[in-house]
């Protein structure tokens, strides 16, 4: 009996390991395209970019403040539509410890500058010339994409697609420091 029991355990372990390998394979393949290097709850990758006024913004400098990161491009109509709402909410929340940073994906200074001054928005706009921040945050071709960073520097939420003003207000509220 002893021997039989041992054999059953060995078989169970072998089958279990093989099952785990299959499950892992199927799971990783299924989520391969959608995989987020960046996950909600994980540390937001630090970065440093220069805004249109020549000022450097480094994410880690905003520790203790919530950061609303919005990735956008001038060719993206929903990005354009949500920006005025973002600007209004930025003015409400900037004195409550929440920063807003719009990250343009690798366009020229002139295009970004003229686009922003036509819209007349005031939040800081940085340009990710080499797309390294886009890569670090795993932002694909689908814009806009918004990442909410908590005062502790953790990713609170990743939003792809257009947001309403109420959405934006809610998101900013959710990353307000205590």
């Amino acid at each position, binding site marked *: 009996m002893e021997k039989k029991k041992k054999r059953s355990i060995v078989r169970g372990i072998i089958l279990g390991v093989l099952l785990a390998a299959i499950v892992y394979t*199927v799971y990783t393949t299924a989520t391969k395209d959608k995989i987020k290097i960046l996950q909600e709850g994980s540390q937001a*990758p630090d970065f*440093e970019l220069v805004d249109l006024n020549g000022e450097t913004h480094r994410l880690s400098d905003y520790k203790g403040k919530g950061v609303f990161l919005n990735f956008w491009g001038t060719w993206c*109509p929903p990005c354009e539509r949500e920006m005025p709402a973002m600007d209004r909410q930025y003015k409400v929340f900037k004195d409550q410890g929440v920063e807003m940073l719009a990250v343009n994906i690798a366009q*020229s200074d*002139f295009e970004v500058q003229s686009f922003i001054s036509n819209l007349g928005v005031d939040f800081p706009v940085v340009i990710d010339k080499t797309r390294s921040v886009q890569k670090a945050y795993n932002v694909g071709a689908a814009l806009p994409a918004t990442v909410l960073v908590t005062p502790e520097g953790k990713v609170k939420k990743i939003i792809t697609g257009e947001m309403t003003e109420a959405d934006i207000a809610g998101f900013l509220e959710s990353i307000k420091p205590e």
Partner: protein
Amino acid sequence: MEKIICTCKHVNPVGTKLCEKCGRPLTTEEQEKSVVDMRYDGIAIRSKTHNKSIVDKIWNFFSSVKVGIALIIITLIAASIGTIFPQEFYVNVATEAEKAAYYKDIYGTIGSLYYNLGLSDLYSSWWFQIIVGMLGVSIIVASIDRGIPLHRSLKNQRVKRHASFMKRQRVITEGQPSEQADKTLDLIEQQMKQLKYKVRREDNALFAEKGRFARYGPYINHLGLIIFLGAVMLRLVPGFYVDESMWLREGETRAIDGMDGYFLHNDKFILETYDNDPQGEQLRQGVNVVAKNYQTNVTLYKQKEGAIAGQTSDLEEVKSYEIRVNHPLKHEDYSIFQMDYRLNELKVMHFDLQNKASEKSLGAISIDLTDPEKEYIIDDQTKVELALYLPDFSGFKDGVPQTASPFPNNPAFIFRMFTPETPEGETSFVSIGQPAMEPLGNNQYKMKFASVETRNMSGLTIRKDKTIPILFVGGIIFMLGVVIGSYWNHRRLWVEQLEDGTIRLAAHTNKNWFGMKKDLNALTTHAHLPQYVDQVEEEQEQKEKEGDNTL
């Protein structure tokens, strides 16, 4: 658990066909056969021994050869279905809708069905991976189940076997040697040793065997397969496998996909063609030019240690390289390959500021589309301001011009022209292929398009594959197993000399009976033995004769 106790008092596990010790047939089925089944030497296949818990049931399912063969056939059929139409991977469109349309347009209704059933991405489908995974489990379980008892039984072979075992072997002899009967066993030993057999003797019995390792061929082969499958699986583990591609324009520096902390600058893309006059086959097939070289000159940069994303002001140059087809840039485990190109994307546009009536030029400006400037000054009183630049003009929406992408496919500009004659400025909307629009009234001046400068784009692929050595090892082990199992065979000879001097001999080989018989012929002559009989051949002859009678 039940055991089978042989007449020789050896205790065998349930399912044993031939006694592990003396070789007596234990089942009625084996007893009725004139030649026993020697495939696994009559051992009990492990799974057959008990069949109780759920673990045992699953184990037994995978241990079955029938299940294994079924899985192989299913895998083959599924894999071949995937080759009917190209897989999505090879279809150069981005969105799901475009893919659906592609299969429908090119292959019609069947193509549409193919796409909708998910067969266009068959090899990444969950069910295909489960089938291959089950095949892997089957290989492992079946090998353990047969390999371990077989190994044990081959290791513990007895010299002396029971008459009922000997008589049921395919090739047998029984009779008096014609000469030197008292020295027969010595003669046999001598001859078998000369034939490179390993010989063991016990009392009046002799056992000779050769090429036992050939029996392990299939198991070595399976081990290779499992290593191969494991390596393919490892590709999914982060850090083992990277296969990314990127477009890089001349003059551009971009973070490299899949290669964190590294940046690549495209110095120049070169396309060279043979400048011969088309002739022969080239002419017949209507090929004008033949490509000679696709090359991208690049510089690889690395971020400083501890630098963070976006800090690109102090990149360190790693190396410069001319990437050509089959000559990738190699760095650490990564290779960057030349894969594709696009020529002549707009880079710089030259315009002339002209008086519309006299066509007199006041000067020229050049707009670098990758970095347009706010104003272009020609002299004290003459300048052109750029009010808007749209790289990919796609029409107006609510009176506002729109761009469809960030790429300069269809550039459009709004200029404000200041000249000594028009110090207030005139506004003009200029786009390709359309007359300039003058939204604020008729202008005296215009921006006349002069010429363009273009740049090329390189399509590069970034690869890293740490599984290749493992794949090689798996493949080599696999082939080794095939060779061992195919070119060597396990030949065995059992001999017993009875009290009256009669020699009882039985021989077995797992394949190549011709070779076995050749050895036996030499032995028969050397030890003066009676002629051996091949019981299987005899049976066949018998059947053929009977067949003849019925005709």
